[in-house]
Each structure stands twice: as C-alpha cells, then as structure tokens.
C-alpha cells in the first residue's frame, strides 16, 4: 500500500471537511496535550516543548559565554591591564570555550533538530520522547554544575582542551578539572541521546512518500551530524570520563609518562573528537542555509544531490584530520603530510555547497529579508575563515600560526561565520513557526549590520596579532610587544557584537509582547513544517501528510494528500520503511513521565559524586534502579486491540 497507488484508488477531489478536521483535532488535543503546571512542565515529552527549552537554555549559554568573552577582551584591551589576574582569566577563558563548544554550539544545533526534524519529516513526534527529555535534563545538569562552580571559584582553568599533564592531578590540584571532565560527560550523554533520537526519527518516521532523495537538506544535515556525534562524542567521553577523571580520582596512569602513560594519547583522543566537533556545529548551520536561500530566492535549490553528497563527504573527511591540531608535536613527517592533504581536501565539498547556493541566488529572485542577509553575512565571513583554514592545514605555516591569535581569528571566523550567522538567520526564519509571531525586520537589519561589522572588527585584527607573535591564552602582554592598538580595536569589535545581540533580544521581547501575526506559512516556504499552524499543535499533524516531492508545499499548491487512520484515542505515530518511506506500522507513543528528570538527577549524583567519593556512585546507581523500573513499567493497555506483525504474518491478539 504505497501513497501512489492509493492516489489511483481514491478520487482526487475528495477533501476532508473542516468541522471533521476540528473534531479530530480536539480528540488529538485531549490525548497529546501536556498537563498544565509544574508537574506537566517536569514530565512533558513533547519534542517541541523540549526543543523550545533547549533553544532558550542554549541561547542563555551563548550570552554567558559572550559575557566571559567581554571580560577577556576588556582585560586584553591594553598591555599590562589588571582587571583580571591570571587565575580568574584562566578560569574565564576555559569556561568561555567549554560553554561555547559544549553548552552552546553543539546543543543548540541538536535543539533545532529536536524541534524541527519531526515537523519537517511530517511525523507526529520524535522517536524516543522520554529519552529526549532525559537528554535535555542531563544537559541542564551540566549547565548548572559548570556555572555554580564558576561562582564557587572552582571553574576549570586548563583550557577547553584540558591538555595533560597540566590537567593531571599534580599540576591541577583541587577539583576544577574534575568539574570540566564531568560537565563534558553530561554534555556527551545529552548529545548522544539526541543523535540516536534524530537518526531513528529520520529513518523510521518520515512521511509516506518522503524517500531519501526527497528528504529536506536541513534534515539531511541533521542526520549526517547525528552519525558524526555517534562516532565523535564517545572519543571525548572516553578521554574525559574513563581516562582523565579516573587518573584524577583513583590515580590511574593513563597520562603519567613515568608509569608508561602518554601525554600525546590525550591529544589524539581529544582531537579525534575535537575536529569533527567543528563540523558537528557547522553542518547543521549549512542545513539552515538551504531553505532560507530557496525561500528568499523564490527558487528550488541548485544541485540538491551535490549538496547531500558534500554533506556526507565532509562528515567522512572530518574524522581524518585531527592531527592538524598537533603539527607542533613529534608526529612523523609523512603522517603530517597526509593530514595536510585531508585537511585541504575537505575544503572541496564545502566549496561545492557555497557554489551551489550562489548559483541558486544567481538564477533566482532574491529578496533581502533578514534571514537572507545573515546568509550573505555567512558568505562574507565564513569564506575568509575557510581560506585561513586551508592555510593552517599547511604544516610549515601552521608551525608559525599554531596556538597564536591567528588561530583564534580563524576559528571565530569559521564558527561565528559558519555557525552563528546561519543560526541567527534561522532564528529570524523559524521564529514565526515556533511562536506564531514575526520578528521586526528593521531591528533585524540593525542586528545584522552590527553583528557583521562587530565580528570582522573584533576578529580580523587577530590575524595580524598572531603573525606578529601574540600567543593564545595569555592573560596579559608587555607594552613593548606593540600588540596594544590592534587588541584595542578587537575589543571594540567585541562590544559591537554584544550590542547587536542585545538588539536581537530586544527584538524577541518586542514581538513576544504582540499578538500572533505569522500564520502557518509567512514566508511562503516549501517545507512540511509550514503546513501546520504556528506554533504547531502538540501532535504536529492532524493527518500525516504525504510527501509528493522535495518541496511539498510548492508542488502541491492546491491540496495536501494525507494518510488517515492513525488512532486519535491514544498517542500513536506512523512508522515507514527506512529508504523509500512506505507506511509500515503504527507505533505506540509513550505518555508524559517524571522518570527522565529523575534519572537525570541520578546521573548528576553519580558523576558529580564520583569526584568526591565512590559511595555517591553506588548510591546514585541504586537510586537510578527505581528510575529504570519506573521507566520500564508499562501496563497492558488495550492489549486486545493490538495488531501484531511477526515477519510477514499479521496476528490480531485476543
């Protein structure tokens, strides 16, 4: 039973009457609605509710990291400044890096996925909603833990890369590094859980007819990145939780050279995660760009297949270039050249994507609305960072530029240009969908120009500073180095960025105070997420839509074919085959549950406690048994009404 032959059997002019739809909608509301009040807030498993919280929390982290950056820039504004001592400065730059990488960039990208992937593939929910909630709460634990530590003078002070032996117990006494290791552990758990969730959602819950070659590029990016997370995150989890934390807590010798341990092992483990990490941030951002470019060029994207392929190749290559973070360490020449080649190779798929978007704009009818502006800002800024990236791939040049402000400039051009700018574009683009309200275009343009100018003023001078010999992670510098003026310029740029973010926040507050004015599809865009009301109802779709092309809303301008028959008296989702998305089964969808937040609490006891005493670990695991039991506890709901399929035979039970 595929959508196509269904189309043949059913007359094309029959459409569902509005009152019928409303009755169905109210039935679904009764079943899918989250309870009001604190309890409902704690127990909800609605992927949109969780996604919205994720977005808010991660954006708060963006602000926190930004404030830390502002402090650092102010300290470096002039030589010999005494605003911050080395101790505070080291804590701040470590917290800044940890926050931006682990608590902002990666989770906010997965947050976008958690909110939009089910909508874009036309599913009623995400594959494992309770796991999804658990991931969010675990992430919240990391946030709270790091920031309480910061105010308890216990923030990590060894850099977001925590190189041993500096982070080994002898040179980092106390628990600052333990905080880092466990914060990383929590974020790893959260990221992995979200990744599995998105992979399964994309493979098993796509709308009928959405074969892999019709999957929106946003979803493709999320899928590819989820696979990258599955293979990258275990690496840093291994390093931080199973090696560094055990070295510090129970005196293991993973990194003790005197007992056969190895300091370079950490760098391999860390960068085998650390480099894909960059693309884990960057690829979803590219996923945001395509729908924005399509919508505001009024044209389907040029080179869909090329874009998908470059996504996948980028993901593969990104695991083959971690050593270019280690060119200054004793690594055989030949090995280095191979990694140079790989590092340069990865520029090709990225280039292809940029060319495809330019071609799309070229042959379309661009409208310079705010989201589109941020995409142009992406070209302007990111290409610069990409080129310096290729330069840094050169072993010889990297020997000079490595660990200098040149790298600081490069990575901010890549991550802000390639990550944050598309993200802001995405905020402006999808804010109406999430809140039902438009953001102000004028404030948006102010926000954009301040941001682009700020970023370039703040980070371009750093290239020069680096080449003029300014190393990274210095809390101050001598007047005779002559680095003062450019640092002052960079600091002013940083302030400009701060102002532009304030403008954005003001813009959000302003439109949240107004009445909903967006409507389901304010930009006349083509994705399935625009087929439902803004904000979407808890069940997303009254009837699961059928994807007849890559751009359902553009190609089926008149009426949308849907699959009916999912039960509305209990939470049920439609599963389809992994590749060509033929309807396969209806799947029970779990109810709201307190156990995700409870188990996240247990995780907190286990991992934070492990810093102080093994008894916390045992206690936490003991408590989590209750949680697991509660999680697994399922009554025999309407047992007789299940239809069971074992292999091909379908059995009706009872």
């Amino acid at each position: 039973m595929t959508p196509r032959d269904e189309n043949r059997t059913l007359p094309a002019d029959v459409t569902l009457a509005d009152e019928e739809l409303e009755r169905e909608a109210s039935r679904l509301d009764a079943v899918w609605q989250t309870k009001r009040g604190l309890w409902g807030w704690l127990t909800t498993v609605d992927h949109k509710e969780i996604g919205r919280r994720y977005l808010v929390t991660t954006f708060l982290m963006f602000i926190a990291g930004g404030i830390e950056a502002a402090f650092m820039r102010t300290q470096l504004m002039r030589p010999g400044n005494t605003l911050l001592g080395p101790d505070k400065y080291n804590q701040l730059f470590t917290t800044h890096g940890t926050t931006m990488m682990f608590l902002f960039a990666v989770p906010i990208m997965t947050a976008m996925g958690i909110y939009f992937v089910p909508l874009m593939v036309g599913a009623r929910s995400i594959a494992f909603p309770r796991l999804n909630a658990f991931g969010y709460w675990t992430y919240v634990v990391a946030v709270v833990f790091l920031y309480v530590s910061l105010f308890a003078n216990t923030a990590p002070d060894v850099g977001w890369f925590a190189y041993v032996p500096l982070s080994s117990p002898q040179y980092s006494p106390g628990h600052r590094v333990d905080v880092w290791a466990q914060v990383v552990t929590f974020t790893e758990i959260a990221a992995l859980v979200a990744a599995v969730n998105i992979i399964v959602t994309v493979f098993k819950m796509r709308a009928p007819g959405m074969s892999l070659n019709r999957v929106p590029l946003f979803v493709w990016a999320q899928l590819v990145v989820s696979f990258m997370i599955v293979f990258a995150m275990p690496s840093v989890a291994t390093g931080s939780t199973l090696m560094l934390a055990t070295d510090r807590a129970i005196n293991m010798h993973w990194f003790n050279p005197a007992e056969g341990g190895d300091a370079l092992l950490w760098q391999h483990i860390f960068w085998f995660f650390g480099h894909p990490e960059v693309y884990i941030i960057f690829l979803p951002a590219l996923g945001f760009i395509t729908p924005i470019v399509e919508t505001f060029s009024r044209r389907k994207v040029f080179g869909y297949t090329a874009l998908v392929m470059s996504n996948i190749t980028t993901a593969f290559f990104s695991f083959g270039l971690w050593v270019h973070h280690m060119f200054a360490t004793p690594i055989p020449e030949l090995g280095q050249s191979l990694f140079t080649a790989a590092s340069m190779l990865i520029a090709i798929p990225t280039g292809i994507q940029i060319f495809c978007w330019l071609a799309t704009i070229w042959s379309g009818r661009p409208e310079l609305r705010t989201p589109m502006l941020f995409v142009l800002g992406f070209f302007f800024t990111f290409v610069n960072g990409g080129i310096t990236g290729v330069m840094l791939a050169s072993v010889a040049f990297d020997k000079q530029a490595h660990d200098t402000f040149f790298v600081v400039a490069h990575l901010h051009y890549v991550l802000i240009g390639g990550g944050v700018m598309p993200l802001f574009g995405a905020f402006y683009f999808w804010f109406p969908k999430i809140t039902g309200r438009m953001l102000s275009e004028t404030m948006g343009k102010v926000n954009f120009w301040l941001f682009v100018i700020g970023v370039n003023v703040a980070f371009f001078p750093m290239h020069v500073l680096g080449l003029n010999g300014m190393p990274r992670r210095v809390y101050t510098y001598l007047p005779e180095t002559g680095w003062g003026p450019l640092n002052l310029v960079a600091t002013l740029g940083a302030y400009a960025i701060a102002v532009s973010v304030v403008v954005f926040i003001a813009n959000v507050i302003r439109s949240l105070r107004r009445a909903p004015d967006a409507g389901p599809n304010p930009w006349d865009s083509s994705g399935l997420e625009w087929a439902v009301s803004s904000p979407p109802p808890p069940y997303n779709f009254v009837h699961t839509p059928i994807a007849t092309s890559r751009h359902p809303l553009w190609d089926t301008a008149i009426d949308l074919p849907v699959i009916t028959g999912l039960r509305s008296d209990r939470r049920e989702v439609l599963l389809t085959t992994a590749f060509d998305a033929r309807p396969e089964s209806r799947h029970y969808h779990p109810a709201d549950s307190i156990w995700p937040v409870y188990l996240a609490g247990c995780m907190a006891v286990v991992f934070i406690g492990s810093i102080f005493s093994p008894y916390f670990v045992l206690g936490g695991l003991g408590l989590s048994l209750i949680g697991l039991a509660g999680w697994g506890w399922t009554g025999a709901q309407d047992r007789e009404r299940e239809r069971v399929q074992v292999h091909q035979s379908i059995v009706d039970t009872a």
Partner: protein
Amino acid sequence: MQIQSALDAASLQARSIEHLWWWMFGVGGAIWLAVIAAMFFALRAARGRRGSDDLQHVPAESHKGLERVVSGAVIITVLVLTAFLVADYAVGRALAAHPSRALTIEVIGHQWWWEVQYDDTNPSRRLVTANEIHIPTGEQVQLKLSAADVIHSFWVPNLQGKRDLIPGYTTTHWIKADKPGTYRGQCAEFCGLQHAKMALHVVAESPAQFRAWFAQASTPNSPPSDSTSLYGQRVFLTAGCSVCHTIGGTTAQATIGPSLTHFKSRATIAAGTLANTRENVEGWIANPQAIKPGTRMPAVPLKPAELTALVSYLETLK
C-alpha cells in the same frame, strides 16, 4: 614596531615559511574577493527577474550554464588546493633539511622559565644558563627540547616555527639565523598561571663573538671584592636563595630555579618579563608575586640593607 614577528624573518627557516605565507595570502585573498564578487553579481544579475511571479521557474539553458560555472569553480578550487599542497610539501622539505653534526643546545621548559644547556662531551664543561640562548649566525643549530613539568612550546617567530616540549618526549628543532640580533620568543602552549610571562631571548652573533661569549660564560666569576658584595653573597648563601639557585664558584649549586652564574650578563629577568636593571631586580626579589603572580619564587623576607647588598652582589655576576 614588532619585537617578535613571523613576518620579519631572520633565519633560513622563518624566511621560507614567510614566503609560503605571502604566497598563500595572495592566492587566498584573490579567491575570497572572487567569491564575494560572485555573491554581489548573483544579487545584481537576479534583480532583473524581480516581480515576475513564475515561482521556482528556471529556464533550462540557464541551468546548463549554471552547471558549467559551478563545475568550473570546483575545478579551480581543486587546482588551487593542489598548488597549496605542493608548496607546503616543498617548504616542509626545506625545513627538514639539516647537517648531521651541529652545535646542540638542550632547552628544558619549566613553569615558568627556560633552562638552557650547551651539550658538551665533557660534563664539567657543560654550560648551563637560562632564558637566554646565544647562537652563532650562519650555521644550523640543533635544539633538543624537553619539559620538566607540563607541556610548553618553544617559539621564536623571527627564527623558526614552534615545537612543543612534552614530558616523556624529546623533540628536536633546527635554527639557522642569518643576521645577528636579539630575537624574542614566548611559550606558545598554555602552561598554567604564568604562561603569559614565559619569554626567552635568542641572541644571534657572529661565530667569533659567540665563541668569546661561550668562553666567558663557561668560567665562573671571581669572588666579589668589595665588602657590600661580600655581605650580599653571604645573604645569598644564608637567606634561602641558594636553596633553589646555582652560582658557579660558590656553594650554591641547586637546580630548582634558573642558574644565576652570569646573572648580570642577561638582558632581562623573570623570563623576559623585566629589563635587568637594579631597581627591577630589587623589586622582583622584594615581591615576585606582584610581578608574576604564581611564580615559584617566594618572597624571601629581607631587611632593606640585606636586599641592597644582595642586589649589589648579583650586579657583580657579569
């Protein structure tokens, strides 16, 4: 003016890297301009089609054209990258080239200063100093790099790219300075509280001058003559300085801190943080934490008279 810069090469190695940089800068800059230009062209070219309401309609021929343009751009990218790769490999070979035998200097990174030892078959003639490396110009010098505590990175931009000093490893580095001068360097791998103030100076001088310096540096000073310096020496040996520091020709032979045998011959103190002047030295000894918060040098409580005498003694260590 820049006291340490990769763009002011003074050695074989730094210059080849600098050439590579300017070359990549030219090509990279051109590519950036091209892409941005393409972006603005795309916006302009599209303007004509504004308002026509055939949604998503793209004429097939323009599609063909697009395909040609895009694949052209991709091919150019590939070519440029290949060129970069070749250039990098060539420079890499150049950097790797070095003679079989050469003057070998061991550099050991400590939190937060540099220990410098000139290899010698005869251990007694092994010259130990700190934070200042003298090398002869015009010949390849080998640096043997190791770390005593955490990872540091040896970096003198005008002379050579950086090389990490990693506990448990010994790495080598080659420098061939081609014009005399003093070149500042700085630790490039984050190494703790005073990473920012862990600098060193490389003094490149003609082989003759170098030999002269070496001979002078290898012979301890004669004991001080005047009474103040003598008192100062006694302070040094009794007040606790000798627990960490070495002064050749005296009973102070500890190796926890930098060797002070020819203290006065160095341009700076506190690992390139302050000029080696009388006031600075007095201020440093009186309260090191004020200058390098976290340094291992404790503030030894001394009476003013003791401090003055101590400094006058150190002044004699030419």
